[in-house]
C-alpha cells in the first residue's frame, strides 16, 4: 500500500513565477506596440513643438507648447502629464485586464490555480506584473523625453517655471520625481483595474470600465456643483504634476495626490483580494 504521508505545502519559487509573468507580458504583441508608441511619443512631441515654436513665439504670449519647445525640463514633465491621462492608464489597464480577465477567458487562469499557485500569491504576482509594466513605461517615456529635450534645447535649458535654471543633475532628479509620482498614480489605476479584472472574464469590459471611468472622473471634476466629490476622484490632483517644475517644488498638492493614490491602491487591492479569494475559476 502506498504510504499516505503528505509532504508539507510546496510552492514554486516566487522569483521564477515573477520572471515567467514578465516574460509573458513582454512577449505579448500589444504590450510591445504600446511601448513602441510611448517611446516614439516624446521624440515626436519634442520635434513637433520645435516646429510650431517659431509662429507661436512670434505671437508674443507663450503657450505651454512654446514653453516646452526650448525647455529640456518641461518637455519630460509635459510629456508625462499628457501621457498620464491616456496612454499610461491604457497600458496599465490593458495589462491588468489581461492579467486576470484575459487569463480566465483563455482558460489559463485555472492552470495556474491548479499548479497550484495560491490565489493570494497569484494576485501578488499579477499586481507585480502590472506595477512593473506601468513603472517601466513611465520611466522609459520620461527618460526618452529628457534626453530628447537635452538634445534639442541643450543642458542650459533646464528652466523651472519659477525662472531658475537648474543643473542637469537637479533636472534629472525633478524628472525622476515626476516619473515616480506618475508611477504611483498608475499603480492606483492598476489596482482598480485588477479589481475589475478579477470580477469578469471579459478583458474588454475591464478596459472599457476603467478608461471610461477615468473619462467620467475628468468630466465630474469640471462640474462645480459636485465639488464635494472632487477630492475623492483619483484624477483630481493629476494637474499638480506641474508643481515639480516650480522652484522650490510646491509639494502640498503632490503629497495630497500621492496619498490619494495610496488610498486607491489600498481600496483596489482589497477589492481584488476579496474577489480573488471568493471567485470560481
Amino acid at each position, binding site marked *: 500500500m502506498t504510504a499516505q504521508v*503528505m509532504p508539507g505545502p510546496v510552492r514554486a519559487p516566487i522569483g521564477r513565477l515573477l520572471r515567467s509573468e514578465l516574460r509573458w507580458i513582454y512577449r505579448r504583441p500589444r504590450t510591445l506596440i504600446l511601448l513602441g508608441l510611448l517611446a516614439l511619443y516624446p521624440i515626436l512631441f519634442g520635434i513637433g513643438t520645435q516646429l510650431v515654436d517659431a509662429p507661436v513665439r512670434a505671437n508674443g504670449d507663450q503657450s505651454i507648447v512654446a514653453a516646452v519647445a526650448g525647455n529640456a525640463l518641461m518637455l519630460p514633465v509635459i510629456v508625462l502629464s499628457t501621457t498620464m491621462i491616456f496612454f499610461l492608464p491604457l497600458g496599465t489597464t490593458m495589462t491588468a485586464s489581461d492579467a486576470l480577465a484575459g487569463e480566465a477567458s483563455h482558460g489559463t487562469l485555472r492552470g495556474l490555480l491548479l499548479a497550484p499557485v495560491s490565489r493570494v500569491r497569484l494576485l501578488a504576482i499579477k499586481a507585480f506584473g502590472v506595477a512593473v509594466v506601468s513603472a517601466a513605461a513611465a520611466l522609459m517615456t520620461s527618460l526618452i523625453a529628457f534626453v530628447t529635450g537635452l538634445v534639442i534645447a541643450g543642458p542650459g535649458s533646464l528652466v523651472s517655471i519659477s525662472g531658475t535654471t537648474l543643473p542637469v543633475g537637479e533636472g534629472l532628479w525633478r524628472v525622476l520625481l515626476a516619473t515616480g509620482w506618475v508611477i504611483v498614480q498608475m499603480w492606483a489605476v492598476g489596482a482598480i483595474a485588477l479589481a475589475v479584472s478579477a470580477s469578469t472574464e471579459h478583458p474588454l469590459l475591464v478596459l472599457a470600465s476603467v478608461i471610461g471611468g477615468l473619462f467620467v472622473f475628468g468630466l465630474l471634476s469640471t462640474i462645480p456643483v459636485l465639488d464635494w466629490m472632487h477630492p475623492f476622484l483619483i484624477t483630481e490632483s493629476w494637474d499638480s504634476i506641474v508643481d515639480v517644475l516650480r522652484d522650490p517644488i510646491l509639494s502640498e498638492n503632490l503629497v495630497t495626490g500621492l496619498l490619494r493614490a495610496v488610498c486607491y491602491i489600498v481600496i483596489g487591492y482589497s477589492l481584488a483580494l476579496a474577489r480573488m479569494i471568493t471567485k470560481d475559476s
Partner: protein
Amino acid sequence: MTFAEAEAGVGTASAVPTPVLAARTRGLRKLYRNTVAVDHVDLDVPEGAVLGMLGPNGSGKTTTIRMMLGLTTPTAGEVELFGARLPEAAQAVLPQVGALVEGPGFHPFLSGRENLLRCAAAEPLLRSSAIAKAVDEALERVGLSGAASRRYRGYSLGMKQRMGLAAALLVPRRFVVLDEPTNGLDPAGTREVRTVIADLHAAGTTVLVSSHLLSEVEATCTHVAVLHQGTVVAQGELRDMLEASNAGLLVSTPEITAAVDALRDNRIPARPMPDGLLVDLTSTTAPEVVATLVRADIPVHEVHKQRTGLEDLFAQLTETS
C-alpha cells in the same frame, strides 16, 4: 498536516485495511443562482484506479471535477484528496495532481513550448533546472515535439487537446484528472489518449476521466461512476457494475424443455434460448441452478453469466432516474 498527524494517519491505515482513496467527496452540492448543478455527490476514487465519470452533457461532471480540484467553492459538502481536506490542503496536495479541465487553455501568441514553459514555472514540484527537460518530455509524450515552436494559435483542435494533456503530465503525478480528454480528437488521437491512460494506470497513477461516451469508459476504466442530473446514480468497480446489471445465467443443454420445466418446478424462472436457456438469478444463485438441473438428470454442457454492454446499464440508469 503535521508530521505527527501524518504518522498517526499511517498507523490507522495499516491497522484497518480500508482501501486508500485518492479522492473522496461527501455531500457535495453546488447551487448557481437557485439552480442545482450538483447535489449529494459522494464519490470515492480508490488509489490506483482509473475511474470513468460517465454522464450525459450537463449532468454535473465538470462542476464536480472543478469542486474536487478547488477551482469552485462547493455550496455544501467536502472534498478530500489523499485524505487531506480541500481547500486547506491545496498547496500540499495539488502539486501531485495533474488536470485537464474544460478543454485546453493556452495563450495563442505563444508557441507550444513557451506555453508549457509558463505552466512549468508554476509547478511546485519542478526544480528550475529540470523545467526544460520536463517540457520536452511532455511534448514528446503527446507527439507535439515537431510543432513545439509554432504558435498555439495555429494548432488544430487535436493538437490543442494534446497540449492540455502535456500540461497535465508535466510532472509525475499521483492523480490525473482528465475532463473529456478525447474531445475533438480523431480515432487515432483517441487511441493515443487511451494509451496514455493505460500507461498512467500501469505506473500506479490514479486517473479520473470524464466522458459522455460509454465506449471510452468501457475501454479504459477499472471503476465507473454514473452521473445524472447532478447526482451520482451508480458507482463501483466496472466488473461489479457489469455483473450487477445482469441477473441472467446462460445454460447450454440439448434438453431445453426438460430443463425449463425442472427449474420451474423449483420456482426458478427461466426461458428457452436457441442453444439452451436463460435463467433469472434475481431469486437464486448459480450453484443452486446447476444443482437443480443435475438432480433432474439434465446434461449441462456449459454455464456462464450473461454479459451485457455497459450501454444497457447506462441507458437503464439514466432513464429510470
